[in-house]
């Protein structure tokens, strides 16, 4: 194709050194932070002061750190929940609803059983109930996906708003505290997760979950099945895996963990239930999982980074008068930049006239078959 070689053509990159991959990602992050700085300038604030305020406002004080941890817990928990689904190429974007349903199930026991059970048992019951409900909520779309191929992206999305609506109804109806208040009463102390170092023990639970998810995905038969299925359904069948079972089981596991996150948020952080209990975490977590490339430990780092941003932004509002919603903008910019930079890791741009392409491509082409096969 010498005559019409386009100015830039793309090929999939075969290999890139780990160090370079991380350098590109770091570069994207720096680029995003600079872009964020421009946003601060538009808002009339000195970017350096602003970033400084974010850091000092979030990590500078013990209370700030506690806030950060409290924000990071549901984000990390949900990101972990989504990892097996994404490894299976199953687009569960219904974590928001699964969190909400988990929180609802836990709240049911918090409201009705707080007086009749000792606290540890109550908390365990709440935890189990949240897992079961989260799993059911995720299992419904999976059931339809496995049997009829119903699009799971769109179905799980719908399930979010159904869950939020149900809790909204409970909040203003059957579970309402003071009539007309539209608020569910605060939990009894026995239904509240205990604190360790000033933050509810959810942080310990998610750290355990991190290790659990790492082991589950890399060491167990289930994890292996999920990864093979994510690569190719045909290969999974060839290896004797039950595709339907793995799909539903994995979605339920994912929903179960998201449900548990709902329990931690309701019982640990809010000590009550309201329809916005998930507060967008289900969506943000999707980007966390993706950016972490499904690596649980990378999820820890990204969750903390986003939590720092969001907590730091509230101090920006008070000290610099810049609206706190700027944290969403900067989060968005970071996510978009990080998503974009993967391109430079996966693809290689070849400029016109560079013959490099032929050398790269030659060894991977199947030799004698190339002529006939390449045409197909």
């Amino acid at each position, binding site marked *: 194709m010498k005559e019409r070689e386009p100015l830039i053509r793309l090929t999939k990159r075969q290999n890139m050194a780990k160090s370079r991959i991380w350098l590109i990602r770091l570069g994207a992050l720096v680029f995003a932070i600079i872009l964020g700085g421009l946003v601060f300038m538009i808002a009339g604030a000195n970017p350096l002061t602003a970033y400084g305020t974010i850091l000092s406002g979030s990590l500078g004080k013990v209370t700030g750190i506690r806030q950060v941890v409290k924000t990071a817990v549901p984000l990390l928990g949900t990101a972990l929940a989504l990892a097996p689904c994404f490894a299976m190429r199953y687009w569960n974007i219904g974590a928001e609803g699964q969190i909400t349903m988990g929180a609802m199930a836990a709240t049911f026991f918090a409201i009705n059983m707080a007086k009749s059970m000792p606290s540890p048992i109550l908390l365990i019951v709440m935890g189990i109930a949240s897992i079961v409900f989260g799993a059911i909520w995720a299992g419904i779309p999976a059931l339809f996906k496995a049997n009829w191929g119903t699009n799971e992206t769109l179905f799980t999305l719908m399930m979010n708003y159904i869950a939020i609506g149900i809790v909204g109804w409970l909040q203003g109806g059957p579970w309402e505290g003071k009539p007309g208040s539209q608020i569910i009463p605060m939990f009894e102390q026995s239904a509240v997760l205990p604190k360790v170092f000033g933050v509810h023990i959810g942080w310990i639970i998610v750290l355990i979950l991190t290790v659990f998810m790492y082991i589950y995905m890399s060491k167990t038969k289930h994890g292996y099945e999920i990864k093979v299925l994510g690569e190719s359904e045909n290969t999974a069948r060839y290896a004797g895996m039950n595709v339907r079972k793995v799909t539903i089981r994995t979605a339920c596991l994912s929903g179960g963990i998201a449900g548990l996150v709902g329990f931690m948020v309701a019982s640990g952080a809010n000590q009550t239930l309201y329809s916005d209990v998930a507060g967008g975490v289900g969506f943000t977590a999707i980007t966390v999982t993706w950016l972490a490339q499904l690596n649980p430990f990378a999820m820890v780092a990204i969750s903390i980074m986003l939590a720092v941003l969001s907590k730091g932004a509230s101090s920006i509002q008070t000290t610099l008068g810049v*609206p706190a919603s700027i944290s969403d903008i900067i989060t968005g910019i970071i*996510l978009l930049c990080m998503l974009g930079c993967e391109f430079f890791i996966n693809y290689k741009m070849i400029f016109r006239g560079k013959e490099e392409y032929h050398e790269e491509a030659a060894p991977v082409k199947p030799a004698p078959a190339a002529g006939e096969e390449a045409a197909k």
Partner: protein
Amino acid sequence: MNFNIIGLIRAAIINGTPLLFGTSGEILTEKSGNLNLGVEGLMFMGGAFGLMGAFVYGNAAGDNASGAVAVAIALLCSFGIGCIGSLIFSFLTITLRANQNVTGLALTIFGTGVGQFVGELMRIKVGGNVTISNALKDAFAEPILPEALQKIPVIGQILFSYNLFVYLGVVMALVMAWFMKKTRKGLFLSAVGESPATADAAGINVTKYRYLATVIGGGISAVGGMVYTMTIAGSVWNHSGLSGEGWVAVALVIFCLWRPMNALWGSALFGALLILYLRLPIPFLPTQIYKIVPYIATAIVLIMVSMRQRREDQPPQGLGLNYFREDR
């Protein structure tokens, strides 16, 4: 509130109009094979920028402000910011081949952030609620057709009593339906969404079609946010007013089976469901349950469609998948 069928129809149509824009824009986008889950963000940005445009103009022009100019500026601002937002999405997914689901969600986070930020910033600058003069408000929200028409019994109210955007939305949806059914470009667009490889082999520029459909579609969706803010929300910035509107629009796309003609009645139906609890309270049916009916209906449609397997009703086959020629 007393039950009044004409009033209900009017309210349904007025409440459905932002959805009509949001949904039609997303239909155009999805027809090209791009699943842009950033509609929520686009509508937020459209709402904030539309208001800002009208507000800035209103302040600058003072008493001489013309309603028509304000409307034009608001339209332009919201459409423009929607195009910019979806251009970011297009660049990331079409050129850089980032995952569409994740990019769309990131755009939602970014867009709601931008919308809130602009709204807040205006509030801080003004030192109170951001709004525009009553004269300008009327240009957005008051009926535009001659009063004589509106006075015709029954149909006058049902057909002729709306603000500009209702008619604009209807015309836009009709034009879009015509474009998709009756023009070559519409046919080619649908081929790009169904099977980019086939379209590519037939000499259709997949990248160009995807970019154009996604960018224009994003602009149209964002106009929906502006319409909401300027008509239903009374031209006042309310930081939670728009929330959820974009997601209903995404649901409606599925409910309409990706057809703009269905969006015409679908948006009115969803608009009705959104306000029905105010108009038609059924004693044993709590208001919140009304609000989830659109989502339940959409989920049921989704299930039915997948079980019936009628090919015409399926989502575009290339939906959500990025196209890379050498993957063939």
